[in-house]
């Protein structure tokens, strides 16, 4: 078991920056290399942005979001959780088709390309949990024991 943080913020656009900066600081303190920190920051930010933009559309529940980040021997795990509308999750480990002409869906593309493993659990009207792993393998400057 390594270090972990949990962030609960209002589901509003102005809090997305706060979340990504905290996640980036945590990744840095876990000795992830700069490029990995950058990729984790982007992926976490995109996951949170998805919640802000889509998760609670037309939903009467109190909009909440929670971000958990934990250091493991395998790398850094980021979980982003909401209790919004849920959606039909794409199959795991499938690289999404990139259609550069569309204005939406780019966040998921970024997440899947930047993280080593991405899993979704989503149920209609119950919410979504996205779990992402940035593997420490092939990161020679990272110290998994710290």
């Amino acid at each position, binding site marked *: 078991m390594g270090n972990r943080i949990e962030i609960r913020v209002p589901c509003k*656009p*102005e809090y*997305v*920056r706060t979340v990504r900066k905290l996640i980036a600081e945590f990744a840095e303190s876990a000795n992830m290399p700069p490029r990995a920190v*950058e990729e984790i920051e*982007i992926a976490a*930010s*995109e996951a949170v*942005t998805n919640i*802000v*933009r889509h998760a609670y559309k037309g939903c009467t529940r109190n909009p909440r979001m929670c971000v958990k980040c934990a250091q493991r021997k395998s790398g850094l795990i980021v979980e982003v959780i909401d209790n919004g509308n849920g959606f039909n999750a794409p199959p795991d480990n499938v690289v999404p088709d*990139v*259609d*550069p*002409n*569309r*204005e*939406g869906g*780019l*966040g998921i*593309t*970024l997440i899947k*390309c*930047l993280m080593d493993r991405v899993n979704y659990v989503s149920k209609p009207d119950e919410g979504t949990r996205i779990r992402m792993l940035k593997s420490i393998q092939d990161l020679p400057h990272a110290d998994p024991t710290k």
Partner: protein
Amino acid sequence: MNFKMDVRTMETDLPIIELEGEVDVYTAPQLKQQIIGILESGAKELVVDLTKVDYLDSTALGVLIGGLKRMREVDGNMVLICPSPRIRRVFEITGLDKIFDIYNSEEEAREVIGKETV
């Protein structure tokens, strides 16, 4: 808020939007309004300078795609200045580097656009 936006006119009379800081779900709506305003003024070409941008998310990409589509609908174009490899990578991952004309500097953009419009 770590975001700043300025609009000016280049020597070639082209409008240029200079962005600074972080363009994300919170700040991108300001960029969208600015682009819409420039479109409504009748401009057919627009330069967006991302030189001083240090974070650009998918919302901002969506706004830029929307602007590009609308410019091209009136046979115009929107080009980007983006010397930062970090920001360019976001365009590359999403395949958007293939649909945007991206230049490294204002001089480079001006040279190419100037040739196209004259």
